[in-house]
């Protein structure tokens, strides 16, 4: 299909603010949720692993490849300019979504994991030597443990860990004790993917900044559940993944304060991140392009922009209200099952419920509820230290998003009763 300038739609559609969260209406936005598995309506409760995609995101990616695909930056022809506009427009959307001070502070990466690795390499490595310390917590995802371990191996720095209590909350006093003039970075998860705990990151940032220590917030599980404002948080780094907030896989964001990003060396070298290359010396592009070597995931960026627009089409208060009610309902329904134990009972908790049933292995539970059309995750959820802390090999985890409803948990409870019957 030929495309002329007049036919090019505004790259990002404006979606009306919905005045309240009508879950039945919201579900219509997600084609995948309409299907059945094993002849049963699909109930998707693995949103902490990845979320489903609304039609607008799928269509944006489809349209990009059908009508808009071209390599970005430096192209003088129509399509390239258009693709560049869409790419940079998504950066603006991310900036607004996080309330960053500038578009320069938004670096596109593959996901939260790559964002953390970028910081470990370009901020950690030049700033750390033997005896320095990095503080993380006992409830980190492996992606916020392993990059720091690698960095420690290389630099001789030490990893210090904030312990957690039996409810699955960080022990604040212990954090204060760990902070010292040796601390060079604090890297903390906002919401735990295996316990659901919402950490008091504001307090952590405040305490760290009092000693001029920068803070990275792993927001992979937070952006789809909370209002994130990086300026009011005052965090130095913030990472999240697109696929966990209704966007495509393979795209994510690293936010970093401009002053910090300016002083960081590039993460990878290649095309698109340079201003001029001579065989003797290369001059790098300005931030954020300096950190985006090679042809990026343009379709992913376009899809992410649309996903964030979709998210911003709701009032965040409505999402929080809906998910809080759902969490309370789900907790009650599941707790009523004899022998069921919830792991992670933080006072401040998001839509993640990890649980065990006495005498039945999570893997067996997962298999049986799957045949009822219910997708939950079983295993260690990439948080083996959390499993070790609670002395369990694995848990079942039901995690929800804005399109889940109370009935999903009624169905899960019914399925769990069947599990118990099989093993009775």
């Amino acid at each position, binding site marked *: 299909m030929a495309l002329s300038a007049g036919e090019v739609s505004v790259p990002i559609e404006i979606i009306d603010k919905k005045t309240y969260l009508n879950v039945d209406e919201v579900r219509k936005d997600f084609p995948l949720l309409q299907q059945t598995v094993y002849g049963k309506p699909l109930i998707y409760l693995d949103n902490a692993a990845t979320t489903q995609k609304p039609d607008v995101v799928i269509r944006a990616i489809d349209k990009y490849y059908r009508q808009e695909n071209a390599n970005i930056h430096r192209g003088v022809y129509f399509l390239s300019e258009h693709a560049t506009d869409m790419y940079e427009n998504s950066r603006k959307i991310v900036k607004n979504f996080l309330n960053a001070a500038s578009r320069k502070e938004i670096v596109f990466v593959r996901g939260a994991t790559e964002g953390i690795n970028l910081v470990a390499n370009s901020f950690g490595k030049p700033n750390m030597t033997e005896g320095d310390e990095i503080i993380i917590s006992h409830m980190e995802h492996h992606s916020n443990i392993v990059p720091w371990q690698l960095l420690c191996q290389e630099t001789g720095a030490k990893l210090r860990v904030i312990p957690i209590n039996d409810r699955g909350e960080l022990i604040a006093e212990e954090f204060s004790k760990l902070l010292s003039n040796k601390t060079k970075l604090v890297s903390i998860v906002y919401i735990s993917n295996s316990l659901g705990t919402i950490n008091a990151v504001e307090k952590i940032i405040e305490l760290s900044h009092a000693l001029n220590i920068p803070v990275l917030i792993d927001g992979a599980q937070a952006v789809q559940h909370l209002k994130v404002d990086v300026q009011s948080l005052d965090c130095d780094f913030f990472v999240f993944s697109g696929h966990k907030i209704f966007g495509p896989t393979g795209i994510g964001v690293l936010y970093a304060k401009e002053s910090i990003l300016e002083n960081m060396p590039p993460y990878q070298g290649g095309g698109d991140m340079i201003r001029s290359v001579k065989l003797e010396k290369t001059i790098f592009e300005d931030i954020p392009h300096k950190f985006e070597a090679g042809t990026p995931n343009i379709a992913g960026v376009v899809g992410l922009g649309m996903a964030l627009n979709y998210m911003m089409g709701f009032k965040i208060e409505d999402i929080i209200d809906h998910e809080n009610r759902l969490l309370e309902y789900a907790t009650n329904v599941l707790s009523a099952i004899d022998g069921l134990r919830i792991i992670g009972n933080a006072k401040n908790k998001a839509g993640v419920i990890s649980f065990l049933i006495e005498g*039945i*292995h*999570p*893997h*067996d539970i997962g*298999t*049986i509820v799957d*045949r009822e059309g219910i997708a939950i995750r*079983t*295993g*260690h959820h990439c948080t083996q230290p959390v*499993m070790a802390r609670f002395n369990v*090999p*694995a848990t079942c985890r039901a995690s929800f998003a804005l399109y889940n409803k109370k009935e999903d948990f009624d169905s899960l409870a019914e399925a769990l009763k*069947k599990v118990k019957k*099989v*093993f009775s």
Partner: protein
Amino acid sequence: MDEIKELYQQIILDHNKNPKNYGVLSSYNRSSEGYNPLCGDKIQIYLNVENGNIKKISFEASGCAISKASASVMTEMLAGKSITEAKDLFKKFQKIVTTDSSAEIDFSKSGKLAVFAGVRDFPTRIKCAVLGWHTLIAAIEQKEEPVTTE
């Protein structure tokens, strides 16, 4: 739920609840540890092998019903068997749990192993079923490193 019933047959549930040959042998000359990183299943096999025969066998496990029952049935069948017979049974077992759902399984000389036929309808659970067997083979071959099913 039919496939679920097929998977969780009474014999499997019984072995899960009351595993046979469970615990450490008072004397053993070979042992091995198996681990499934996907679900955290762990298994330890202890063997007393003399002149190419398994005189005694036991296991310890923390894992799902399928992996536990599979190891339990295995130990029950292998006590007194030769290593060659054990390896043959392992091959039979692999066939049973991996034969395509639409194809006929040859159950000859398989004994109790037939109860694991339901596993083939659950591809993600095959690793659970074979963990004990892989660990056994490692013990027979005396591998020092923990076995994984990855």
